[in-house]
């Protein structure tokens, strides 16, 4: 299976990941990619940075499980999931999901599914650094609802 799953502190080059999905691939007619960025605000205050903690022994395994589930639901070609950990500044790239498929509908759906599941099932925790100090980000009900809708 053509899965690339990476957890790293370093930034990534989207063009390189895109090329990995595209090169020598004549069977897939669609590539859908998503890139998540660090925002500089939350409900209460200005965010000057973010610290991303994870559970190293589990992270890769959890992401692979999500990708496996996507593959059970849709016919997919290549899948790439890259998530960064550690210290991040506003505007930085934090996550990348890329999916190829013979037709666009599967690629769109799988990309969204992987992000929705990643947000509720992969062991990452964000701590925001604001002018008020540091605080752990709490899980959002809307993220849970987005993941739950795939099971309806």
């Amino acid at each position, binding site marked *: 299976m053509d899965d690339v799953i990476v957890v790293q502190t370093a930034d990534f080059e989207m063009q390189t990941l895109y090329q990995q999905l595209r090169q020598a691939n004549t069977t897939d007619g669609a590539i859908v990619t998503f890139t998540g960025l660090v925002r500089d605000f939350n409900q209460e205050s200005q965010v000057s940075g973010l610290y991303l903690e994870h559970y190293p022994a589990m992270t890769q395994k*959890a992401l692979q499980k999500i990708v496996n589930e996507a593959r059970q639901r849709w016919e997919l070609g290549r899948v790439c999931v890259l998530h960064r950990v550690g210290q991040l500044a506003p505007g930085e790239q934090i996550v990348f999901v890329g999916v190829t498929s013979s037709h666009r509908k599967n690629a769109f759906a799988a990309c969204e599914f992987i992000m929705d599941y990643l*947000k509720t099932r992969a062991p*990452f925790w*964000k701590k925001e650094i604001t002018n008020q100090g540091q605080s752990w980000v*709490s*899980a959002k009900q809307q993220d849970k609802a987005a993941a739950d809708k795939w099971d309806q």
Partner: protein
Amino acid sequence: MNVLFFGQLRELLQTDSLQINVAVSTVFELRRELQDKGPLWRDSLERSLTLVAVNQTMANEDTLLEKNDEVAFFPPVTGG
């Protein structure tokens, strides 16, 4: 059995891991054992506030445990 804590839970308990040598057969029993350590542990490990993984796979209260399992408790995840 090795028990790990992550995120805010790790900070609240000021503990990132501990060894449990008491025989517990489910996540439910392990949670009760840990909550007996005091009010801070009881409140922080409230079932509705935490997720649990056994051997790096999401688990629930009924998940069976064995002596050498790695169990992790953590708050709802916030990646992405």
